[in-house]
């Protein structure tokens, strides 16, 4: 077995030093009824090339995004990741280290996290950011709990534009909470979240661009929330938008949660992704997750450590702000490298290019008979209404090699109002030919369906 260093004679020699007759003697505390009382029936070990053949066969049964025109977004986006990023994150020193518990020999990871926190704070316009959470959805649930701790109030209002999966995760985390208000899906960008805020409200949760692509007025939301002593939690699933749209921190956000996958990370069928969280400096003690801070070593040299750990489970146990331990370290590294490569100039150009292609997509969709664009505003994603149910059309297009977006019914199966809707995204990878082919296939599918 190529991963196990011991020879049979070494094992025997080691057992001799231990004074055990055989390896079973080391398992003597295991009840006899439970020790190897079974035949697993699993296949035996295999050479590398056979494992590779097996995995390649599975991979070949999937239609990769790069195989054809691709417009799927809805919380995960296909962007180009520079080759440098993937090379660097596979270096042993990044890939095979763990949480920097021993700072003297983890300065690489720690300095990177300090740089990462700085980048996240800058793009969101907030005072401080943590060293990552699992993803945007669980980050949203953590933000909601954080807001309840900060305000000592209970009511949470989720905008109808919040990603349905994010809403469902918050519902699971706040199971049976009578003070959780989930507004109905608002595919046309409508919403009455401001009228829901009252004196018992801990926070309102507003996503922008929202699930349907609309840009939401954060300033108005912040002002209304603050007037009642409530907090504004801003959720961003497409972090590239921050290269073109105003920073939530400048508009009054109290906690910002982003899905950071778009920068540095592949689609990966939904994970691993990267939760970003940023907040005001006065809220830092209630923030979940790791924080990296600057300090000095015994010689006075600048160095970095994990800090403010008295918030965390390994110190505070049942009084911790969260139970999170392992987070998304390597995804944060990928994000940070990609963001360093972009810099302000590149990040801005990337965002503009995304929007530019989305505008082309919107204009082209507007020419397809029967297709109605629901957005007056968007960044790189939009919602269209078809004259027919959307799911079969998307399926039909997939068979033709075009991945046309997400039928909203996939996420909202019990809501007849969204049955004809598709959410579509364009990125810097979307070509004019892709858009033309989508329009052509959509037109044909709608006609076919109508007949």
């Amino acid at each position: 077995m190529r991963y196990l260093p011991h020879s049979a004679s070494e094992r025997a020699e080691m057992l001799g030093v231990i004074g055990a007759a055989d390896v079973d003697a080391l398992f003597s505390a295991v009840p006899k009824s439970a020790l190897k009382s079974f035949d697993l029936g699993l296949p035996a070990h295999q050479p590398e090339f056979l494992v590779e053949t097996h995995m390649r066969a599975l991979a070949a049964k999937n239609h990769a995004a790069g195989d054809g025109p691709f417009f799927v977004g809805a919380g995960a986006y296909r962007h180009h990741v520079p080759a440098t990023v993937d090379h660097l994150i596979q270096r042993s020193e990044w890939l095979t280290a763990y949480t920097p518990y021993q700072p003297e020999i983890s300065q690489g990871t720690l300095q990177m996290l300090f740089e990462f926190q700085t980048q996240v704070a800058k793009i969101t316009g907030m005072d401080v950011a943590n060293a990552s959470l699992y993803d945007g959805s669980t980050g949203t649930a953590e933000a909601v709990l954080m807001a309840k701790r900060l305000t000592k109030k209970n009511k949470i209002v989720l905008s109808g534009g919040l990603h349905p999966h994010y809403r469902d995760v918050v519902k699971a985390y706040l199971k049976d909470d009578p003070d959780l208000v989930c507004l109905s899906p608002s595919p046309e960008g409508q919403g009455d979240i401001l009228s829901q805020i009252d004196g018992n409200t801990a926070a309102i949760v507003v996503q922008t661009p929202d699930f349907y692509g609309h840009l939401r007025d954060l300033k108005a939301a912040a002002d209304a929330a603050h007037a009642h002593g409530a907090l504004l939690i801003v959720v961003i699933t497409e972090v590239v938008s921050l290269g073109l749209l105003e920073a939530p921190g400048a508009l009054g956000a109290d906690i910002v949660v982003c899905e950071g996958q778009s920068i540095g990370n592949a689609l990966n069928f939904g994970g691993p992704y990267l939760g970003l969280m940023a907040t005001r400096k006065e809220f830092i003690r209630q923030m979940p997750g790791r924080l990296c801070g600057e300090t000095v070593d015994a010689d006075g040299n600048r160095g970095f450590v994990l800090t403010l750990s008295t918030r965390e489970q390994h110190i505070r146990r049942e009084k911790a702000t969260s139970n999170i331990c392992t987070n998304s370290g390597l995804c944060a590294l990928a994000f940070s490298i990609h963001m360093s490569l972009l810099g302000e100039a590149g990040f801005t150009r990337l965002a503009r290019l995304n929007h530019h292609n989305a505008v082309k997509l919107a204009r082209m969709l507007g020419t397809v008979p029967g297709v109605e664009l629901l957005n007056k505003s968007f960044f790189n994603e939009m919602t269209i209404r078809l004259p027919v149910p959307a799911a079969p059309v998307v399926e039909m297009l997939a068979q033709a090699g075009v991945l046309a977006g997400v039928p909203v019914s996939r996420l909202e199966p019990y809501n007849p109002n969204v049955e004809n809707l598709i959410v579509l995204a364009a990125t810097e990878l979307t070509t004019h030919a892709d858009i033309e082919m989508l329009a052509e296939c959509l037109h044909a599918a709608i006609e076919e369906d109508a007949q």
Partner: protein
Amino acid sequence: MSMNTQGRPTGTGTSGSTAASGSALIPDEPLLFEIGDTEHSGVDLPEVTIDDSFLGGFERKTKLDLAGLTEPEAMRHYVRLSRMNHSIDSGMYPLGSCTMKHNPRLNEKMARLPGFSDIHPLQPVSTVQGALELMNQLSHWLLTLTNTAAVALSPKAGAHGELLGMMAIKAAQDAAGQAHRTVVLVPESAHGTNPATAAFLGYTVKPVPAKADGTVDVEAVKAALSPEVAAIMLTNPNTCGLFEPQVIEIAQAVHDAGAFFYCDGANFNAIMGVVRPGDLGIDAMHINLHKTFSTPHGGGGPGAGPVVLSQALAPFAPVPFVRKGEKGLELVEHVEEHALCRVTAFHGQMGMYVRALTYMLSHGGDGLAQAAQDAVLNANYIKARLQHIFSVPFPNYPTMHEALFDDSFLKDTGVTTLDFAKAMIDEGFHPMTMYFPLVVHGAMLVEPTESESKQTLDRFCDVMAELATDAKAGNAARFTAAPVKAPRRRLDETRAARQPVLKWEKPADLPQAAE
């Protein structure tokens, strides 16, 4: 708290003279913001003219002020930073409870096949049949290795799996009219995530004391059980490195009291393929794919924490899950009855599923059992070689995959567990887990894993013995000054916490009196 988010001035301290700072092959590296600026970029993208008619007046006015690096600058920055990290690939990393085993690169290669890495979680299910098949195969391995009824793959890490498992227990009890069960029993030796998880869900945490031999007393569990108890959260093998000999009796007592048995699976590496947790009576257990099944630790994640469930809890599994349908495999993303709903967007850590299955297929059922046995053999070998000079708090049982020592061998030496750990750094080893479990004074929890050769273990034991001998000989200064050969000497953690500096700011922007 007075908060200072301002960065300290550029440049290192007054003393650059020790080996700890800027030695030949490990140069000090400035922050990227001190190297790059807003004009530099390592990505070539066309400049386009923006049609602002869809931007609703929300264009960014706040400066980004993001430093950029060209490609050669970025390459050098991150390679230089990486050299300040210890890693499994560069040396033994015996961090107890973390299972720092070898990370095969075949895993990485497979995870990067476009058929896995370049598929979207919401593209039509008909276009991702291979992904669903992979999830099914991984589930089969996990269920077979644990002899349980169902598995929820989606949790993002171990603590997230704990949360899901305890949510399932809560949902099952609510459905059975048992919502009055509000207490969760947690042994004092448990990982901090256990009580944090229980409290997260509103449970009251009641500690269960350990016996003098380091194991949980079935009588103490019975005494703590009551109609208010929802569950026990027990780690097995436990955090003292011991297999709980009375685990079956404990499970029986817990079930008799109408409660559930949540098992923390962080230490599954000791028993995979050798003992099936389902045979011990567990109801839910998370499995850290980044520990047991070699998906890399990545400097602190991403992990993956699938949870196996007993028959009683299987109906309360969250979405999504895979099942066979008429047109191939289906992905069930919504269930109305009894469902927890979902604990994460999309379908969990696919990238980790690919790596874990690759690892399982490489090892096979036979290899996994051999790996567990070798992990246990290695820990017992370290214990055997060091027990005469170190102090072993629980000598009665063979240890499992971790060797636990306390600090009584350091009594009157002026050397603490922390000092000892820092001296190990100077000898080229990552220290073991320190001061955990909490039930052992000055704990040193050593987990070698199966990946270490006898030669490495011998060198490790030689170094550990030499250090212990030197400490006892009164050479405390070697320990209290350590490390001196690392990229940094000991860092001032008190200062970091009292005056938090959590991001960099331009020296020019600093107020005159920053501190």
